């Protein structure tokens, strides 16, 4: 992994105590059971059952169109925005069925944040981008806002670069900085899970390295699920890896095993580059 100059600060965004090393003994935070998704008649996800461990980085890999982004979006119910989507099976986060009839999707999305493939900062100032989520959920006091904005930007390793221009437009930042701003925006509201949909695919190698370092830091506080088409990235930063192929979960295991000694032939073919 490339050495970078991003200072490794302890992330204190949450009020949780710093957690110990990620390990197989960590509790399961997200559990899916026989999750299937249909776009109209077409079955995009086929009975996927898996568990995501708390405060670990879990990577979803697989060729384009295999459903990994679709699966990711089930966790914060962003698929609800698409017409003609049907979901069967269970998704439980911290024991609660998130597709239950009386679940408030808005509350869910406060606890399960998302960073998108194409960075999408609001056309507002850097400060306002982060304050937006805070204001939505009740924070009004200026000094409280200032404090959280600074903490989030530090947590996203962006503070030093932008501390002198908090009130300039976010659109003036570089691509990599914009993506880190989006990460800061997501962690500002203290979610428990951060979903990342190919967060570095639109970035140059140096910006990518910065984001990867950031993820390693963030996992001390947050549970991270990341979709990536870059296998080397998955190998670098994730603790667990799930391999998907045409809507099915083929293999899910500790990262080192997936990449050095996979159980299924399909997995081996994919990680050694024979297809995809």
């Amino acid at each position, binding site marked *: 992994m490339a050495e970078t100059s991003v200072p490794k600060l302890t992330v204190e965004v949450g009020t949780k105590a710093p957690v110990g090393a990620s390990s197989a003994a960590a509790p399961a935070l997200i559990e899916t059971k026989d999750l299937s998704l249909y776009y109209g008649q077409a079955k995009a996800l086929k009975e996927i059952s898996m568990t995501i461990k708390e405060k670990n980085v879990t990577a979803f890999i697989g060729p384009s169109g295999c459903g990994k982004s679709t699966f990711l979006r089930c966790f914060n119910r962003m698929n609800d*925005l698409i017409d003609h989507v049907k979901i069967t099976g269970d998704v439980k986060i911290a024991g609660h069925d998130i597709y239950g009839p009386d679940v408030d999707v808005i509350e*869910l999305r406060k606890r399960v944040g998302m960073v*998108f493939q194409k960075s*999408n900062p609001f*056309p507002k100032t850097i400060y306002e981008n982060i304050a937006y*989520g805070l204001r939505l959920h009740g924070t009004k006091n200026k000094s409280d806002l200032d404090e959280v904005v600074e903490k989030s930007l530090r947590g996203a390793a962006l503070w030093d670069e932008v501390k002198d221009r908090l009130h300039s437009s976010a659109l003036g930042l570089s691509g990599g900085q914009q993506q880190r701003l989006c990460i800061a925006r997501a962690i500002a509201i203290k979610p428990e899970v951060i979903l990342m949909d190919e967060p570095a695919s639109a970035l140059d190698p140096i910006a990518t390295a910065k984001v990867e370092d950031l993820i390693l830091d963030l996992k001390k506080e947050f549970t991270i699920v990341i979709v990536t088409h870059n296998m080397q990235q998955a190998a670098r930063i994730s603790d667990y890896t799930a391999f998907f192929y045409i809507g099915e979960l083929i293999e899910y295991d500790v990262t080192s095993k997936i990449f050095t000694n996979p159980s299924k032939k399909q997995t081996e073919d994919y990680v050694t580059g024979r297809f995809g």
Partner: protein
Amino acid sequence: MDTQTPMLHFNGEAPVGKDFKTQGFNFWSFFFSGLTGLATMLILAMLAIILFNITLNGAPGLSWRFLTSSADQDMFDVNKAGVLPMVVGTSIRVILMTIFVIPVGVITAIYLTEYAHSTSIWTRVIRGAVNNLAGVPSIVFGLFGLGFFIGFLGSHIDDNILQSAEPKWGKPAILWASMTLAVMTLPVVIVATEESLKAIPQGLREASLALGATKLETIIKIVLPQAMPGILTGGILSVSRAAGEVAPILFTGAAYYMASYPKALTDQFMDLGYHVFILSTQSPNIEQTRPILYATVLALLILTFALNIVAILVRAKMRRNMRLLGH
């Protein structure tokens, strides 16, 4: 045929393009291309002629005094005529109109872009209704204003709510004229607003929703502020169109001469366009009226044209900004 280099023969026949020299002057292509260019120039020329003719003939009469005084002395004397009451009348009715048309138009556009399912029948019916509204002749709007606003709403208010013997609301009034125009320009606002809403990248909405905002919050805090230039364009375009329309106000409130400015919603009003119409068709001495007529037309044209150009510039700038956003 003369060739410098040996050419491939297909089946022993000469190839279509004999050599690389020009085939000579293709007359018909040039002719027809020229015709289309002429057609374009014809349109531009007509536009220029109309604008120049009106400006040249109207400018001499268009003094500050003309614009700011009223014509209560002699309507037909170019030195004494004034169009202030008409300007006031037109302005008031246009302002009243925007109060009605902008909220309804923007909300309808929001429904069509943000909430409606593109395949539902009801959505298609709404869209069809908006399109048809755009095509209804202006005189039919005048009939509607007369039949519905005055003949139904107005007389209903008079008979049942006010119980007055004299028609108060059930007669031509600036309120009804404005509402008729609001109905008429509704499609303009809807289309302009929809255009600007559609230009906002979906990623912004998703980012807001992913942070736990509701759909309404996303629309109010993120989408609408971004769409402001488009809404503004729609508003300006509707104002520009409404200021120049005469047919819908013929029976719903325009008057040739009023002794005072419209003070109540039930008053009638004077109007620039209507004045042009009356002067053009009912002047006792057209030669004498010419200068005033031209000046009035120029005043009207400046009003509508200037607004139109402002709207186009705002829209062009908005499109450029959208491209810079890159999304």
